[in-house]
């Protein structure tokens, strides 16, 4: 794994000195991060270090008070709406409607992004939530199946930057292996993945690069 993206590759995330204050507390205190297209970058660090806030800032979900940068070529301060439409974020919750089936959820998100039924079917197939699972209400799925459905939504939305907060949480060993495989395949299709995880060994095997977040700052990678 490399500690920084090569200069020859296109930067999907390029932020400098980002400061985000939440509830009077500096959740990010001057974070710098550069991620190239196709990378799988792990954010490691202790609880409260700022990993989730960094992911949310990259998704355009929180407004920085200082700093600058670009995500997917859009300005992080002035073009947050444009960033959101190209970013797919899955946090601790999956963002699904538990009363709807897998297929209905994917169709709904397809309607939000202009995807046709073929694209919806392809996304379900890619994340292995097609066939019998497609007609099962999400509320009856296992944690792993829900997480795969949430990732299928990112495929339906054609998200080019995947921001995943603790994606392995709640999954059994087989589910974690499957998730890792799915993320690798996603990057082969052109997506970029930035994720946080407390599972150091597994995450290090998955990531092409690792950076450590500590006290709201991004430190030089450990991989």
């Amino acid at each position: 794994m490399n500690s920084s993206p090569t200069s020859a590759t296109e930067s999907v995330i390029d932020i400098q000195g980002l400061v985000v204050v939440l509830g009077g507390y500096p959740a990010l205190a001057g974070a710098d991060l550069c991620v190239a297209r196709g990378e799988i970058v792990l954010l490691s660090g202790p609880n409260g270090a700022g990993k989730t806030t960094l992911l949310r800032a990259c998704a355009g979900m929180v407004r920085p008070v200082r700093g600058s940068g670009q995500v997917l070529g859009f300005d992080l301060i002035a073009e947050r709406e444009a960033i959101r439409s190209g970013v797919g974020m899955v946090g601790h919750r999956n963002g699904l409607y538990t009363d709807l089936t897998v297929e209905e959820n994917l169709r709904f998100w397809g309607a939000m992004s202009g995807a046709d039924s073929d694209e919806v079917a392809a996304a379900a197939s890619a994340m292995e939530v097609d066939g019998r699972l497609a007609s099962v209400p999400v509320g009856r799925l296992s944690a792993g199946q829900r997480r795969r459905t949430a990732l299928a939504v990112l495929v339906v939305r054609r998200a080019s930057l995947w921001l995943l907060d603790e994606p392995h949480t709640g999954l059994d060993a087989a589910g974690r292996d499957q998730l890792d495989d799915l993320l690798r395949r996603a990057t082969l299709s052109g997506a970029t993945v930035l994720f946080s995880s407390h599972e150091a060994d597994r995450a290090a095997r998955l990531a092409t690069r690792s950076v450590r977040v500590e006290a709201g700052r991004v430190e030089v990678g450990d991989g």
Partner: protein
Amino acid sequence: MAEVSRFSVSWAVLMKDLRIERRSRVMINQIIPFSALVMVLFAFALDATNILTRVAPGLIWLAVLFSMIVIVQRGFAVESSDGALEALQAAGVDPSAVFWGKWAALVVQLTVIEVLLVGAAVLLYGVEIRAIGLVLLVTTAISATCGLAAVGTIYGGLAAGVSGRETLLPLLVLPVASPVLIGATRAVEAALGTGGTTISEGWPWLGLLSVFAVTFGVAGSFAFGPLIEE
């Protein structure tokens, strides 16, 4: 993401909400029985036919208002239980389109409740619907429903991310919706001829309801995004 029209997003949100309702059957199993119970309890509390006939318009709209709060709480609980509303924000979906979709779903559900409550008032309270007042009755119901749905959607979105939203929502909605309660009650009284009122007395109240609906519809369209934002 491909450009998607605002109407397409609103339509998808509307159909999604109605599909969830059809699947969960909360409306049939909980909200309609709740509305019926309110009407029956009023009948017991005011146990005299002439009083019930006199106050029926107000009781109908009170029952609609109470039912709306339950529907709105349910409608936004569905959005926030697994973070779907936040996911919509994170996906850059036009918040005004989401507002109109949820507004339309609420209009559909309130309309069902209102039809049933008017039927209950006819059966339980002996209310008589005059043909001459039918236009005023229907237009009042449409205007009041649109206004209530706009208020419910705005404050439902506002309360969605707040702890204690179950108790907060009625506190927010009831004072703001009181002009609808008053206006709709007066207009329906005129439509039914309650207490010797005439049809012409109802039209100014209908005007008030229309202004209210347009005002809160426009406000919701612009304010819904910032309101649901963190």
